[in-house]
């Protein structure tokens, strides 16, 4: 929708109650672990205590002999010959020749109770040959590091690179050396971020059933039921259409539930147990040890700036480990890190490195927070050195429509300048600061994503609408899709029911990821609603005996398009629906595509902190999120995305990290020690929604889920420098680290 077409909608932009609200406040909503089935067995998984070990022998005989045990599976029960990502998924589901990280699955058991299954797991005897391990990215990239997997490097890696580099990536333009010569100040710094977990409160859970005939069913908490179907089928060698996957309500995902972990195990166990359904629910420590954390990163950045704040050149070299498999988001980190800036000379280099850690999964704007931490920290430090206002510098260098992005292509409609202008005007930016207090600002970027989408809509006998979507509702997408459909059809919000359906009901849908649900399912649902409208106009035209082109749809009713079309009173959706059985049968609409027209989203955050000089503890005093939503369909849930993203970023900045011991074991696999932000750590999170409509979406939606996690990491580091004069370059900025830095600066 072009900028000049912003108008007030009847429903879009209002804040009705979410359709699943009642179920969720009464405890009725059914999540992954909330369902049971007749004849159900309980599954449990044996996991490696070693970071890196050869598996010499697995003896399951004692476990199998335990009364109540119905099946035991190891890698020997899986098909062989898989390649590429299918092999990676299978290997991560269950270890083959080697255990590759602390927590890697070795065997699984199904029994008549959870207690018996746990007991049986303890009876499995495994003989390991422990191998040297490596968990830190800078150690893993050394030429003499323990080799995690021979031959894992892809074609991008030139000869002669260290053995754990599995992907190499390089892009840029202009002449960075010339650019640095044009600068008045050139600075270079190294930054590190630690791995964090998505931290959804609902552990992974599934109930899988698979018969000897290859027909199966699964109930599972996931962001994408078709991904579960495709991946389980690939790993187990099944016929995908024979596996019917139903998504439960999902207790948070943030990217971590876009892949498989123990789901194939429930199916393999079920098949071995004669087709009895098998429920597997992970414990929190299993979630932290063995499901997707994000990558850890080590990053060098060099930037040139003139004394009036113009960026002349930038060079970024990032190293990331994403566990024992390829897939660290180093490419996305590099694409995003300089995206807010118009800059002619850029060079980006990235290394994806294997280490003995769990296979990383996507986490909200994968890669972007790390890259932003490095670049936005350095730009802030340079602003301080040159005594420049960090907002002025960001605005001066801001990319606008028609500018070439740091990663190559030309930007279409974007709203960075509007975001920065709104931020600069916000009262938080002029709130007075006291002693030991500082303010930090930072920008963030995410592309947003479309992906395969299939939606179906049907008009009910009473003139309401039901919409079947394939994107699980994590943060209110049923509400936003219902608003768009009701707006389009001209009916009440309450008269639309949006159902998240199982894989047998629609064509393939990608998961709810990439901030795509409201964009892609919303766009497809709108197109489907228009198809139903066209059919309803046709029915009215036939009834009136006029040409269907002479009928238009206004406020939920068909009516003659003009005086020449004839004189007929409007025929409402209810009237058309009531008679549809007599006028040609069901009225529906559907749409399948990879919707085009994705709109990127920029954000800017402002944080005020107070650092206790005695303890090094950082308290967040004030927090502001400003972000371009394109169009906020349900503003409350847009604000919710901004606030939730910001607080995840605050956790990443201040508290959260995977801590590995010298033995390669995860030291903090419970929530007491993997410390996520709690209510008493935080102030209110102020938000401002900027709306620069996306021309590629019928209501202007950009997608808002991911960008918000990106700016907090650097914004807080920048604020800490403002409060203390000390620059923190290694996350998380725990009290211990800040105190040590304060002491070092005073010596």
């Amino acid at each position, binding site marked *: 929708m072009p900028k000049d077409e912003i108008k007030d909608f009847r429903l879009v932009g209002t804040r009705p109650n979410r359709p699943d609200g009642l179920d969720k406040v009464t405890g009725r909503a059914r999540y992954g672990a909330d369902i049971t089935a007749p004849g159900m067995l309980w599954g449990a998984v044996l996991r490696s205590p070693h970071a890196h070990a050869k598996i010499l022998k697995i003896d399951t005989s004692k476990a199998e002999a335990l009364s109540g045990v119905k099946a035991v599976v190891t890698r020997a029960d899986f098909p062989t010959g898989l390649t590429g990502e299918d092999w990676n998924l299978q290997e991560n589901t269950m270890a083959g020749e080697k255990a590759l990280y602390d927590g890697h699955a070795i065997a699984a058991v199904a029994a008549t109770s959870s207690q018996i299954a746990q007991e049986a797991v303890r009876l499995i005897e495994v003989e390991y040959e422990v191998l040297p391990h490596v968990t830190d990215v800078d150690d893993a990239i050394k030429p003499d590091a323990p080799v995690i997997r021979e031959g894992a490097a892809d074609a991008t890696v030139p000869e002669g690179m260290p053995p754990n580099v599995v992907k190499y990536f390089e892009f840029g333009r202009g002449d960075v050396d010339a650019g640095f010569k044009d600068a008045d100040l050139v600075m270079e710094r190294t930054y590190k971020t630690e791995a964090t977990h998505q931290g959804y409160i609902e552990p992974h859970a599934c109930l899988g059933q698979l018969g000897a005939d290859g027909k199966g069913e699964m109930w599972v908490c996931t962001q994408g039921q078709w991904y579960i179907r495709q991946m389980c089928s690939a790993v187990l060698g099944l016929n995908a259409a024979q596996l019917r996957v139903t998504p439960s309500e999902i207790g948070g995902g943030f990217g971590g539930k876009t892949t498989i972990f123990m789901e194939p195990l429930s199916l393999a166990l079920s098949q071995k147990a004669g087709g009895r359904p098998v429920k597997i629910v992970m414990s929190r420590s299993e979630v932290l040890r063995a499901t997707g954390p994000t990558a850890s990163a080590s990053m060098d950045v060099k930037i040139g700036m003139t004394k009036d704040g113009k960026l002349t050149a930038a060079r970024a070299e990032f190293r990331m480990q994403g566990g024992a498999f390829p897939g660290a988001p180093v490419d996305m980190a590099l694409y995003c890190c300089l995206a807010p800036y118009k800059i002619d000379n850029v060079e980006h280099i990235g290394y994806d490195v294997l280490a003995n850690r769990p296979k990383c999964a996507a986490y909200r704007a994968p890669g972007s927070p790390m890259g932003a931490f490095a670049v936005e920290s350095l730009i802030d430090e340079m602003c301080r050195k040159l005594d420049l206002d960090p907002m002025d510098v960001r605005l001066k260098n801001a990319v606008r429509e028609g500018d070439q992005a740091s990663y190559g292509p030309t930007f279409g409609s974007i709203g960075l300048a509007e975001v920065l202008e709104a931020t600069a005007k916000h009262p938080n930016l002029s709130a007075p600061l006291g002693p030991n207090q500082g303010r930090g600002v930072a920008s963030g970027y*995410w592309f947003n994503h479309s992906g395969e989408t299939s939606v179906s809509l049907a008009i009910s006998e009473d003139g309401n609408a039901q919409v079947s979507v394939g994107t699980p509702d994590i943060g209110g997408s049923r509400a936003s899709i219902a608003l768009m459909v009701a707006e389009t059809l001209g009916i009440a919000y309450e008269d639309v029911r949006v159902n998240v359906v199982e894989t047998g009901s629609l064509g393939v849908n990608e998961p709810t990821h990439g901030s795509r649900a409201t964009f892609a399912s919303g766009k497809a649902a709108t197109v489907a609603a228009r198809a139903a409208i066209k059919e309803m106009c046709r029915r009215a035209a036939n009834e009136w005996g006029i040409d269907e082109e002479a009928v238009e749809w206004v406020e939920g009713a068909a009516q003659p398009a003009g005086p020449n079309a004839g004189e007929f009173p409007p025929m409402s959706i209810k009237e058309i629906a009531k008679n549809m059985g007599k006028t040609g049968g069901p009225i529906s609409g559907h749409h399948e595509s990879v919707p085009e027209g994705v709109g990127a989203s920029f954000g800017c955050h402002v944080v005020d902190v107070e650092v206790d000089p005695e303890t090094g503890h950082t308290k967040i005093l004030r927090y502001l999120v400003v972000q371009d939503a394109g169009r906020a369909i349900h503003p409350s849930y847009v604000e919710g995305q901004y606030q939730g993203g910001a607080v995840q970023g605050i956790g990443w900045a201040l508290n959260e990290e995977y801590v590995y011991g010298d033995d390669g074991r995860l030291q903090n696999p419970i929530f007491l020690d993997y410390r996520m932000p709690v209510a008493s750590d935080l102030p209110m999170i102020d938000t401002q929604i900027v709306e620069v409509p996306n021309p590629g979406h019928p209501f202007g939606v950009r997608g808002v889920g991911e960008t918000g996690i990106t700016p907090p990491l650097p914004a807080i580091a920048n604020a800490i420098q403002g409060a203390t004069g000390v620059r923190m370059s290694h996350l998380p900025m725990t009290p211990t680290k800040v105190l040590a830095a304060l002491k070092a600066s005073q010596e």
Partner: protein
Amino acid sequence: MSELTVHLWAGLRRFTGGHEVVTVEASTIGKMLDALVEAYPGLGPILEAGISVAVDGEIINGGRHRPLSPSNEIYLMQRMKGG
């Protein structure tokens, strides 16, 4: 068929005789990718592993049949993912 200008990323230069910007004859995204592999077989495994294509600034996955013309700005990119 028309001549398209395609921007690669610098890491691919070693498969294209040092060129980061190449031209191929093609009329769609799919044919453009096929033509690239034909001209520079070393690109095969990389394109096969999955990439995205940015056309006039819009990043596209799964648009093999989308028409392209010489006026389009075309960039090969890493495959887009999301959380």
